């Protein structure tokens, strides 16, 4: 049951883009077409789940026993950067077609603050669902949380790109063109997502 609550909470209630403001750069940058938005969200889901798994293990089996938690930021970002590079190399070797689809998004993911943000969130914040006392996630819950957060990112960016495709065709006043109208659209979407608050 707790897993279901984690998933619903991460996708809808605390959507990482529209309520936590993580991963705004790709959200604005690669949302001009639905197809690229879908590719980006697939790549993010993959990397986010993997990165959270690895940084979780790093935190509890290396940093905490050695008492060097202050190296969290440095070590997490290096692990994520290395991981992204590795995924890119492996993908290129074993599945060229998947690499074709996701390849161009992978380098961008290193600087997607959502990946580092979620990795830090699961080791820093305590969560409590369904009346339970707040506690730190275990490995399984962390990976589920990361995957669900990434799906939330995918949902937001895919919906948003659909709206932006329509916006391209409409006559927007000149100072509004480009990013400003996109931001205002995102604001209205965020308002719609606020309707989910209070579910979990």
């Amino acid at each position, binding site marked *: 049951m707790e897993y279901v609550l984690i998933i619903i909470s991460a996708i809808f209630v605390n959507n990482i883009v529209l309520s936590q*403001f993580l991963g705004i*750069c790709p959200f604005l940058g690669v949302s001009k077409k639905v197809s690229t938005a879908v590719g980006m969200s697939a790549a993010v889901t993959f990397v986010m789940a993997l990165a959270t798994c690895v940084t979780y293990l790093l935190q509890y089996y290396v940093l905490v026993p050695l008492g060097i938690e202050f190296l969290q930021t440095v070590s997490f970002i290096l692990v994520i950067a290395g991981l992204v590079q590795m995924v890119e190399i492996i993908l290129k070797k074993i599945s060229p077609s998947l690499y074709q689809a996701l390849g161009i998004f992978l380098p961008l993911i290193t600087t997607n603050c959502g990946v580092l943000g979620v990795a830090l969130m699961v080791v820093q914040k305590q969560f409590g669902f369904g009346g339970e006392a707040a506690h730190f996630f275990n490995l399984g819950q962390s990976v589920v949380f990361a995957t669900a957060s990434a799906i939330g990112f995918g949902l937001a960016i895919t919906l948003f790109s659909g709206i932006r495709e329509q916006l391209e065709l409409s006559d927007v006043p000149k100072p509004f063109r480009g990013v400003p109208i996109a931001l205002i659209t995102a604001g209205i979407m965020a308002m719609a997502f606020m309707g989910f608050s209070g579910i979990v």
Partner: protein
Amino acid sequence: MSKLRIITNGIIKENPTFALVLGMCPTLGTTTSALNGFGMGVATMFVLFMSNIVISAVARFIPNKVRIPSYIVIISTFVTIVQLLMQAYLPSLYETLGLFIPLIVVNCIVLGRAEAFANKNSVLDSACDGLGIGLGFTLSLTVIGLVREILGNGSAFGLKFITGDGVLAFVLAPGAFIVLGYLMVLFNKFVAKKE
């Protein structure tokens, strides 16, 4: 370019928020009030200033292939310093900004300036650039925070000037997007045109 030009360049012409549209996550996430925005801006400015200086000083010795990871290590060192300093001396601000302090590492502005400016200019010029871009970022975050605070809470820099509540939505997530969107429209209309 004179040093002063480099500094003012970052404030208006290459304003990181309104002209370059970089570093959107902290811009939206931390500007719930003018002071929070200001705090985040200063923290980022410190990291930008220090990392620009160090990167411009050591850029010649770093092989081209590993430059990005090396820059990230330098940047995250300063982020950790900011994080520890804030935790010690400004614990309440540290609580409010939360996750966004460590996330300065992945702020595109910092890495962007390292790549676009610091690695090909002198130490002094890079310091000026870091200062200018940092000031531009601080200024825009404070303005966004101020507008949101006035509309959402009826106060400015923590001083309340109306009785009762403001429009709460401006402090919450939707307000961030909408305020930034409209401020960007004003910037496009009145500032960017003059060039």
